[in-house]
């Protein structure tokens, strides 16, 4: 959709520029803050020139804080864009990767890798497998997501009711989690502890080639989503209209599923199940930009997702203390109220979805 009138066009641009500035600002803040105090000027020089007299600071910034901030950006973009695509595909404001059990599906994929890996049954052990291991885990997690997604898509064809679909999603998520629980039941206590740590979610620990692999997959998924944006726009009018406008719905659906599964699968594999980002950010972006045009919404959700994920990460670090909160706790605390707001303010839901 082309915005012809000058007014909405410029306001989109202004909001976008504002978001870029905010994203850059919070990225810097995220790198700046942490349990070790590093002066601002040093941080800037390390980021831009990669040099510092203090090797400990250099190590902290380059090996810990920068990868973590980059991971936050990837997670923010990936989860929110996959949520956006799902909301359009299902024509359901309550769709999202964690809500419909897609992250649980990815968790199942991760668990499957761990099961077949035998003794080294922990995510941290898998991470030690190196580049092939990281691909394996991404493939399995994406397949797990795709499995749940296609199951939900199959059921969604028969159900038009938003809330019922949500309940079905929760049920499928529960089934998936039960399967994982069986595996947990037969695991060693220390493995269990590590699994539980994984479910808390963590942006740290994605380093070296893992980060490159994750970046590559997330960028590919985002590109796939952006390429589908014309089709997503057509789908806004419903599948029958989309088909009458020349869209091959099955192919589009496959593209969207591939993108969503890759994004959710890869991120969940490395960072654990991170809730509420996928459902909440598309809504915030829609009301911020006042549009349903995916060519604007996809970059928009990326930026809003980046900003909010960085803020969540900053909060999770509890600035000024030595404690770090699990990221999933923070996103849930911020995201769940947004979902409640969506359900309560029927107006908001109606304006986008009816």
């Amino acid at each position: 959709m082309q915005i012809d009138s000058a007014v909405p066009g410029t306001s989109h641009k202004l909001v976008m520029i504002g978001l870029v500035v905010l994203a850059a600002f919070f990225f810097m803040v995220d790198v700046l803050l942490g349990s070790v105090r590093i002066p601002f000027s040093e941080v800037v020089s390390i980021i831009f020139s990669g040099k510092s007299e203090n090797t400990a600071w250099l190590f902290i910034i380059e090996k810990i804080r920068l990868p973590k901030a980059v991971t936050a950006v990837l997670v923010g973009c990936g989860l929110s864009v996959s949520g956006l695509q799902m909301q359009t595909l299902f024509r359901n404001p309550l769709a999202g990767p964690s809500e419909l059990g897609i992250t649980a599906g990815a968790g199942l994929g991760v668990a499957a890798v761990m099961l077949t890996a035998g003794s080294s049954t922990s995510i941290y052990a898998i991470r030690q497998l190196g580049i092939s291991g990281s691909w394996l885990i991404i493939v399995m997690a994406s397949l797990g997501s795709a499995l749940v997604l296609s199951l939900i898509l199959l059921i969604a064809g028969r159900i038009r009711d938003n809330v019922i679909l949500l309940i079905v999603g929760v049920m499928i998520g529960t089934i998936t989690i039960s399967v994982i629980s069986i595996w947990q039941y037969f695991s060693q206590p220390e493995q269990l502890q590590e699994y539980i740590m994984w479910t808390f979610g963590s942006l740290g620990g994605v380093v070296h080639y893992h980060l490159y692999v994750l970046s590559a997959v997330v960028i590919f998924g985002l590109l796939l989503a952006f390429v589908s944006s014309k089709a997503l726009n057509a789908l806004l009018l419903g599948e029958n209209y989309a088909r009458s406008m020349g869209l091959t719905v099955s192919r589009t659906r496959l593209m969207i599923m591939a993108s969503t599964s890759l994004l959710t699968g890869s991120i969940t594999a490395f960072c654990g199940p991170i809730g509420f980002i996928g459902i909440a950010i598309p809504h915030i972006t829609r009301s911020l930009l006042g549009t349903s045009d995916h060519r604007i919404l996809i970059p928009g959700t990326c930026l809003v997702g980046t900003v909010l994920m960085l803020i969540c990460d900053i909060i999770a670090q509890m600035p000024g203390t030595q404690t770090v909160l699990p990221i999933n706790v923070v996103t849930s605390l911020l995201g769940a109220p947004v979902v409640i707001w969506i359900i309560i303010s029927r107006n908001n839901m109606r304006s986008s979805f009816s």
Partner: protein
Amino acid sequence: MSKSTSLLATRNLTIGYKSGNTTKVISENLNLTLEAGKMVCLLGPNGAGKSTLMRSLAGLQNVLSGDIRIEGELLSDLKPSDLAKKLSLVLTERIEAGNLTVQEVVTLGRTPYTGWLGNLSNYDRERINLALEATGIPEYKLRRIHQLSDGERQKVMLARALAQDTNIILLDEPTAHLDLPSRVEMMHLLHNLARKSNKAILLSTHELDLALQTADQLWLMKQGGEIATGVPEDLVLNGAFESAFAKKDFYFNRSSGTFSIQESTFPLNISLSGNQDLIFWTKRALEREEIGTLTDAVFRYHIDITETSSGIVWQLKWDENISMVTSLESLANELRVIKNAVTP
């Protein structure tokens, strides 16, 4: 007068549903044509299979046998993107993306013509503006769909179909949910569109009288799926209309072109005199009370209707009695008493 060209034609078409091993035939052996510049209304009782036919013609549903040709090409051979340039749709389903502006929805109609990202050329913009103007909604351009009334929404969806720039437009019950003025407006709009832009327009509707007035051709679908086609007046005169909607206690009144409740011998007959309009409405009210009326005689019971400055007065005279009432409701009440007295 340009030579009429057939844009859509079916040959020995059988439509219906197939699920597993069971096949449900809705309608068979259909040989229908849609011609350029004509508006065709598909009429039929509920459940006759109008929607199935529309869906089959639009390629949204597979046919059981026979073929559909769109501008000479087999529908089954057309790629979705090519079909989208020949045939557009307006469906009954409410669109759920109320957040979209009118302009955005109409712009979506250009989807078959734009590139991978959907950027518009100047020609695309021109077609969009033409579509907005043809439906009379350019001033709504920036309004959001959820701010519009049902009638306005329907016009937006029509504008979207027009922007798609196809020779054939199929509309599934475009007048449903609309009030009477909007219904009339929509039908005339479609009729003019067919004439001016030489498009073939097919719409399914329940508006018998409007369809009779505006359609160039009718497709009358009977309960069994049989379809009679022709000019509305022909179908009225050859009885196809009556047989399509045949139902107990209903009859098709050829002189007025409307359906009425079955006429029967009334226990009480009354003569009327007065202004034409007033007689018309009084007659209707009395028929509902099962009281027969006549205007060219004076019976024992006679009503004289006059319109005075203070309102309408019905003067009921019988034998030596005269009673005056100022509303049809009180007239009906009074006559009910009389009717009960005369009927054993």
